[in-house]
């Protein structure tokens, strides 16, 4: 039999329901493998003991009607977890233990999931390589010294290394899809308003969205079904009819219209990305989809718009970390001195950079030129998609303009780092669902991903297209366990 840790979530659930594997056996396998994988630096906080205990409790009183019966799951350390330290990858929350649970994680525990641990991420989810985390770099299991993407880098790494059967991340500008693409895994950012933001450490409130990360498309559909819910505790949560994504999943996408936006052929795009996209178009055709050329004319403004809106919101969202109520407090001569010392020591470089950008673009005299204009452009970008969706059901693009890069390669060049988000950012600005699926490899054998963008609340179509293409692409990660001792 295949090792427990390399099973898909769907297979694991099946085995547990058929009593071939107990929850405790599954927990032991993932804990054991996680303990042997410390070199990857995926965990910020381990919950192993408690996970083993809870899995035993599950086995003593199993409930197989649940959607995640006794399944151990590690989550990004941006989700507040009751009585388990939650750091957001930051020194300023180094010792913060919430007394409450995020809605998304609560949904998982309600369906039988058991917390394995909290996964590393870029500080306050600001980064594309997991290099801004206070808790250090994360290794990509694909190859040594390769970044796992970011900001959900601990999640993508742990998932690709089989340390957790599935995981959840958050995606503000690509933080689920880009790391999925870098690790040969699947990552879905749902429509804004699909998953509650309650209890998720906020980065940019109008863009943040939690979503599933998994080894295949079916697993993402199972997890989305669990985490997506209307929540009165989040005023931006939307009360729409949610599908039974996993049971409605189908490979029949015959006649579905898929748009190819010409503006995504950016200057300097590597040939292998271009080829991947071409191959993707062929796969989609093979699946019975109709390919249509479309235009999203404001695409080139998406990145600058994003880097105004996101820092602006972040600068305000992060004001609460002031040393007064919780988290790190450095002593100071006066209140202002205490603020300055706490925030200087508590925040890393990238977070400080974005707070400064955000403060600047909201300042009087600059607000109209930056923030207000960015909001107007954001509307135009959204309208581009609305217009396109009059003609097509979904849009196919590459997930990223390159494959995973080496640790340290871009960490001193913020702009080249920001360019990583070029294909994912417009989706957040427009609040749309988008998925990244592994679709090929570059010359180094590093994985490359394709992105499918859907209409608002039409996660089902996005999943169906991905599910159908996944079969044709037939990508398999080749993990060598190089990091194990």
């Amino acid at each position: 039999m295949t090792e427990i840790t390399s099973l898909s979530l769907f297979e694991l659930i099946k085995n547990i329901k058929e009593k071939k594997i107990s929850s405790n056996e599954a927990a032991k396998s993932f804990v054991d493998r996680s303990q042997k994988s410390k070199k990857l630096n995926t965990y910020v906080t381990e919950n192993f003991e408690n996970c083993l205990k809870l899995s035993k409790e599950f086995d003593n009183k199993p409930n197989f009607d649940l959607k995640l019966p006794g399944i151990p799951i590690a989550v990004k350390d941006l989700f507040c977890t009751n009585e388990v330290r939650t750091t957001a990858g930051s020194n300023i929350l180094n010792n913060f233990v919430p007394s409450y649970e995020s809605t998304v994680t609560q949904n998982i525990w309600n369906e039988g999931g058991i917390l394995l641990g909290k996964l590393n991420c870029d500080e306050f989810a600001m980064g594309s390589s997991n290099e801004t985390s206070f808790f250090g770099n994360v290794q990509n299991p694909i190859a040594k010294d390769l970044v796992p993407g970011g900001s959900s880098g601990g999640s993508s790494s742990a998932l690709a290394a089989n340390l957790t059967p599935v995981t959840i991340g958050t995606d503000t500008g690509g933080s689920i899809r880009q790391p999925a693409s870098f690790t040969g895994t699947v990552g879905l950012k749902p429509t804004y308003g699909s998953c509650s933001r309650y209890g998720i450490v906020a980065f940019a409130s109008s863009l943040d969205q939690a979503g599933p990360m998994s080894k295949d498309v079916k697993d993402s559909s199972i997890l989305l079904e669990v985490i997506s819910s209307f929540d009165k505790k989040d005023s931006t949560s939307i009360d729409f009819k949610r599908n039974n994504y996993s049971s409605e999943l189908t490979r029949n996408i015959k006649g579905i219209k898929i748009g190819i936006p010409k503006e995504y052929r950016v200057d300097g795009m590597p040939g292998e990305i271009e080829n991947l996209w071409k191959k993707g178009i062929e796969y989609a055709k093979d699946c019975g989809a109709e390919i249509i050329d479309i235009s999203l004319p404001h695409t080139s403004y998406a990145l600058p718009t994003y880097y105004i809106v996101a820092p602006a919101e972040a600068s305000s969202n992060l004001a609460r970390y002031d040393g007064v109520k919780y988290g790190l407090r450095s002593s100071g001569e006066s209140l202002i001195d205490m603020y300055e010392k706490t925030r200087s020591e508590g925040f890393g470089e990238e977070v400080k950079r974005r707070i400064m950008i955000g403060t600047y673009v909201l300042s009087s005299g600059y607000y109209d030129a930056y923030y207000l204009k960015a909001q107007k452009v954001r509307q135009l970008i959204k309208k581009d998609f609305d217009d396109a969706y009059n003609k097509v059901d979904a849009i196919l693009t590459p997930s990223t303009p390159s494959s995973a890069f080496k640790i340290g390669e871009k960490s001193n060049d913020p702009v080249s780092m920001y360019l990583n988000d070029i294909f994912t950012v417009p989706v957040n600005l427009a609040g749309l669902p988008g998925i990244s699926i592994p679709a090929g490899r570059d010359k180094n054998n590093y994985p490359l991903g394709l992105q499918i963008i859907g209409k608002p609340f039409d996660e089902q179509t996005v999943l169906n297209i991905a599910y159908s293409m996944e079969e044709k692409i037939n990508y398999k990660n080749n993990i060598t366990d190089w990091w194990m001792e």
Partner: protein
Amino acid sequence: MDGIMSKNNSEFFIERNDNIYEVVIGLEVHAQVTSNSKLFSSSSTKFGAEPNTQVSLVDAAFPGMLPVINEYCVKQAIKTGIGLKAKINNKSVFDRKNYFYADLPQGYQISQYKYPIVGEGNVILDMPEGQKQVGIERLHLEQDAGKSIHDIDPSNTLVDLNRSGVALMEIVSKPDLRSPDEVNAYIKKLRSIMRYLGTCDGNMQEGSLRADVNVSVRIKGSTELGTRCEIKNVNSIKFMQMAIIYEANRQVDLIEEGEEIDQETRLFDTKKNETRSMRSKEDAHDYRYFPDPDLLPLEITDEFIDQLKSEIPELPDDKKKRFIDEFKISPYEATILVSDIDTAKYFEEVVAKMGKNRDMKLAVNWITGELFAVLNNKNIEIAHSPISAKNLAKLINLIKNGTISGKIAKTIFELMMDGDIDPQIIVEEKGLKQQSDPKALEELIDKIINDNREKAIEYKQGKEKLFGFFVGQAMKASGGKANPQLINEILKKKL
């Protein structure tokens, strides 16, 4: 002559070296919304609880916590807007006002900046020289901050977050006020309207009503506005008036000395009775307002507004008009009776209980005279009056139908206070019924005339002053119970 010109009305001018200055005042009133829970959380708003016992995770701005609007507070703001005859905006937006302070847990206050929930309206003031209309610029909803306490611990500042997140209405007036008296009338009228509506209790001691006072001066007759100073967070009408008088004189002095007035924020020191500079325009905060992405714009339908309109009770201005029309009382009397909702209620109950043969004049006089005096003396609200409206109405009816005299009524009134006793019972138990039997009174008067023969002759010879002497004797002989009108009539006839 230098100084403040005093006049027998509400006018206020400052005279210096032959220049007459007028003061221009605008108020930003912060009124705490009457509600059980806070604007964006379910914590209690009860006053006087132990520090930090009414604080939710949202109020303390824990990571990942999100605001959820309290619909009741929105309704209260709309009702207040209706009471101010103001435009209710179908769409309004909550913004973040960003600044750091220890008692501001989020690092920003959620407020409304460009798009307030209520737009322009107005308030009518009853001044000695007539009615005056004061424009309302806007009303918006916002969160209160917590409280920093500097005087408990010698080396630390303590923070109480019980107030953090409590809903406030900021009501901004146009610069239409011209005197401390008008400010007094404006605050009282606002408070009266909000108490009628039940949207703010107006309790200034508990901080439910505070104001930032904008003051500028200009030469009387000028139409341009002078440079203004904002006096922050004044929490009593008296202090507002003192601050305005001080500040207006300070500004006039500066102008007279040929100096410029700096636009700045000032504090009123109640102990020294002076305003002090807090920060200049250059040091003004850049609040970096932007729409709060955690909250959707507030959309209010016309049906929703109409529904609330239908729930609005009769407000002071309408009530006053009705009192004048229906009860035929003077505008002055009506103004006094409607200024406080509980007084108006009491008055209407007295009127109702008096029945068909009601005497409005007596009712008004007894409430605004004897009753007000007692309430003032004992510092009691009319809602807790020691004499109920029902029993006061009975007392008035006893006077009206001649059972007792006005003089006896005052004695009875005193006795009634001891547990709201029915005046009828007092009259019977103490035998205070007025003597109105003409035969008995005639006998009584005959005896007095007989006993005072000489005085009766002097009266007949023209010493008319003596009439009062006979009345007094008759009242004395009857133990004060004789009907004074009958006494008069009989005396005239007999003498």
